[in-house]
């Protein structure tokens, strides 16, 4: 099934979202991905540059060329004090309809923890359990047709959980 065909109906809100994606430059990657008709897992889709970045800023830069806009409405629920950094539950809530969400931890040896790509019907809510090597900010970046939205949440870690 070709998703482009169903998303190209004139006046369809999904089509406008598509055009927004193309405009923001991030969308080009998405187009290539969708146009390839679900390549099998492992078809070079894993964003290597994101996970090879050793610093938070470098990892953030791999998310796209646009500026990061602070979004206080982007909810990040995590414990203020995590006794065990090996399992830190994180919940992300946004009323936006994300095209993608990235989770980063500045204090980890690999700051990029996860990147998610969403189909249009997926809500802006995620729960996941991550590792934190030390006390640090959790940084979340939500990409939608308007750009890149960022928020942070500090977590104090008693026993680091990356090694």
């Amino acid at each position, binding site marked *: *099934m070709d*998703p482009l065909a169903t998303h190209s109906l004139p006046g369809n809100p999904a089509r406008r979202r598509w055009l927004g994606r193309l405009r923001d430059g991030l969308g080009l990657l998405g187009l290539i991905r*969708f146009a390839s008709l*679900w390549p099998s*897992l*492992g078809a070079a*889709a*894993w*964003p290597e540059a*994101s*996970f090879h970045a050793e610093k938070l800023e470098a990892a953030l830069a791999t998310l796209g060329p646009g500026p990061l806009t602070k979004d206080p409405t982007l909810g990040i629920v995590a414990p203020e004090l995590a006794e065990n950094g*090996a*399992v*830190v539950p994180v919940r992300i809530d946004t009323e936006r309809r994300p095209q993608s969400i990235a989770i980063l*931890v500045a204090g*980890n*040896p*690999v700051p*990029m*923890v*996860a*990147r*998610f*790509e*969403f*189909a249009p*019907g*997926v*809500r802006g*809510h*995620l*729960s*996941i*359990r*991550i*590792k934190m090597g030390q006390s640090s900010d959790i940084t979340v970046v939500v990409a939608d047709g308007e750009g890149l939205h960022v928020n942070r949440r500090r977590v104090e870690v008693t026993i680091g*959980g*990356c*090694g």
Partner: protein
Amino acid sequence: MDRPSIRLRTEWREGVCTLRVLIKHPMEPERVSESGERTPSHFIKELRFLHQGRELLTAYWGPGIARNPYLEFSFDGGSVGDELVIEWLDSRGERDRLDTRLDAAAG
């Protein structure tokens, strides 16, 4: 895989389907012992959900996801009985896949 690694629970609220997925996987970062012996990392790199044959959500992960990964998310437009495929691929090239249908309640 001698046993299914992927467990799924489904919940519905006002037409919104929530998927809760638990995967059995060590999610190990690279380790270097004091003697310099290197143990390569072993973690799920890609996790994909296909709903009715179409991509719903794809996750790209590094070693920073906790052992036995848990993921919860919600989506519109699903119906009980719809086809759902969940598949993952890890850094060693191992993979697993669950072919199922959306359950009315607990899966």
